[in-house]
């Protein structure tokens, strides 16, 4: 379905589908929603006015505690659930209306793999491929074989799927998403059930796919994982979108004034070190055993007292310590992690939303 070239300058947010309008240009968003809402029976809002914008070519991390509406959102994007209000656009086309055209270009792993236990791994893939209207049966065998190899399942392809471990099922689910060249991959918890080696392989696969130009929309509860592979991220809690942006920007904008980097000094002279650090403007100084920890002031604030030409660089803190005769055995700073961003936003950590 080749789209006509985008008319005029790129807009930040293309308008949501107008009835009777020409099919919208593919545009810069792989996924775009405005005010996407889903109310279940009884009026409870599972997803509440979601404005999501996933740039093409990004690896987009979708974060949120269990039960916050992530999966409902993904199901709406894939046309499995009808939104209560407003529409979503996937690859520039309205969903679920254009599902027949959009979905063959999307590979999806939704809420874990689901397989026919009585079929072999290979037959499972044949079955899902037969359900795709755009799949050519003449190339099926080759594509199935390639997908199996890609996820490292070629050797176990003849085994019945019910004999697979969770990790193998997960790989087979991924293989189903990779049966065709895709423009967008929606992966819900793709490393669930995998061992560390398997997780690494999946991460490498995601990077490889992203390098080919595939947009990857990745939901995960492993913040670490999102931080490692994603270029962009969004955080959702209690059905609402709290923030979205590039991973680098997220920590800067969200943590903002609270986004102090942590400082740790290892020394036997803890009392003296704590005194020097406090003088230099480090806050929240604490001593535990041979460790002095504190929070660096925001980058734009001057380090140290204003009147006496205080050190302006973190390295100078170290120099100040050494100058005061503190035997510094270790000195390190830690950037705020995505986990800090998450906790700052949701204030609840990773508990299940009520």
């Amino acid at each position, binding site marked *: *379905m*080749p789209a006509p070239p985008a008319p005029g300058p790129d807009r930040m947010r293309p308008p949501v589908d107008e009835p009777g309008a020409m099919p919208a240009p593919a545009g810069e968003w792989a996924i775009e929603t405005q005010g996407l809402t889903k109310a279940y029976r009884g009026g409870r809002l599972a997803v509440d006015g979601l404005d999501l914008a996933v740039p093409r070519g990004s690896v987009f991390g979708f974060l949120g505690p269990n039960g916050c509406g992530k999966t409902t959102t993904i*199901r709406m994007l*894939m*046309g*499995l*659930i*009808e939104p209560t209000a407003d529409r979503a656009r996937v690859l520039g086309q309205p969903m679920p209306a254009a*599902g*027949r055209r959009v*979905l*063959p*270009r*999307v590979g*999806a792993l*939704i*809420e*874990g*793999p*689901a*397989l*026919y*236990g*009585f*079929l072999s791994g290979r037959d499972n893939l*044949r*079955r*899902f*491929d*037969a*359900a*795709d*209207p*755009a*799949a*050519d*049966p003449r190339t099926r065998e080759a594509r199935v074989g390639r997908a199996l190899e890609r996820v490292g399942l070629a050797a176990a392809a003849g085994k019945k799927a019910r004999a697979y471990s969770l990790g193998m099922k997960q790989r087979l*689910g991924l293989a*189903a998403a*990779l049966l*065709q*060249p*895709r*423009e967008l991959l929606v992966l819900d918890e793709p490393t669930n059930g995998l061992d560390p080696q398997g997780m690494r392989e999946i991460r490498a696969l995601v990077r490889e*796919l992203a390098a*080919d*130009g*595939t947009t990857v929309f990745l939901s995960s509860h492993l913040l670490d994982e999102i931080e490692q592979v994603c270029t962009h991220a969004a955080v959702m809690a209690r059905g609402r979108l709290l923030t979205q942006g590039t991973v680098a920007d997220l920590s800067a904008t969200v943590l903002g004034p609270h986004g102090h980097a942590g400082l740790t000094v290892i020394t036997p002279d803890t009392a003296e070190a704590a005194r020097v650090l406090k003088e230099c403007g480090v806050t929240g100084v604490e001593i535990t055993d041979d460790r002095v920890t504190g929070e660096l002031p925001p980058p734009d604030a001057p380090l140290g007292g204003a009147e006496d030409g205080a050190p302006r660089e973190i390295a100078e803190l170290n120099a100040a310590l050494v100058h005061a005769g503190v035997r510094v055995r270790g000195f390190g700073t830690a950037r705020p992690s995505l986990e800090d961003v998450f906790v700052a936003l949701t204030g609840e950590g990773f508990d299940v939303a009520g």
Partner: protein
Amino acid sequence: MSQAEAVARTPRPLWSLGLLRSEIAMTFRRWRTLALLAVLAGVPVLVGVAVRIETGDGGPGGGGGGGGEGGPAFLSQVTHHGLFLVFASLAVTLPFFLPMSVGVIAGDSLAGEAHGGTLRYLLVAPAGRTRLLLVKYATTLTFCLVSTLIVALSALATGALLFPLGEVTLLSGTSVSFGEGLLRALAIAVAVAVSLAGVAAIGLFVSTLTTSGIAAMATTVGLLITVQILDSLPQLHALQPYLFPHYWLSFADLLRDPVYWDQLEKNLGLQALYAVVFGSAAWARFTTRDITA
């Protein structure tokens, strides 16, 4: 794996057939389907052997050709002609065994996929909800035909082994050649398969209501039994022409010369009505349902 490649693909016009083939192959490879078919194939053998043992001591058979024993239809004629075992077996299995197995297949068709979660992957493939529904119904109808033919073939083989063959005396008294008798048996098998279309549609509809395959199967079979009971209560005489099993035994009219078409046509119309009504209900439900399993 580049975007350019991905854009170039367009839906193929005949892919629905590919999905249907995949569905039929999968259904008939399942252990459960094979077990159902094995049970159905066993019924004629059981009936044939029972009749044979009972009449094996050179007795005159089940009391003459009048069929006055009160047992299932055609049973008394079986000793005279093996082909009648086909009719007797279909008459024995049609009230319960056949519709029950159709209920199992139809009830599990969508609910089973929903239960296993594979439904969501079929739909994002994207199989298309209307197409998937049609494919499921077509597969169930295929099962109706195959299961009926299996009963008929098993009965034919058993009948040929245990009883004499030859010219067939029809219910109206005329004799026809064995070849024509076979043709009529085939027509009867098709008529019986068509009789199951209504149950298949009901099962499909029930299957769209739940995500539990077992619940859907049990509901369908329960409905079947209820309707069978209603159909036998004389007080409900006015209602009975609208119950789907009411004209089921009309297939016997194919054994008359000339054939009485009246009841056969009514049966066909009734099954079509059930297929349309419950098919539409299934469609309305399935195309608007939120797939959360």
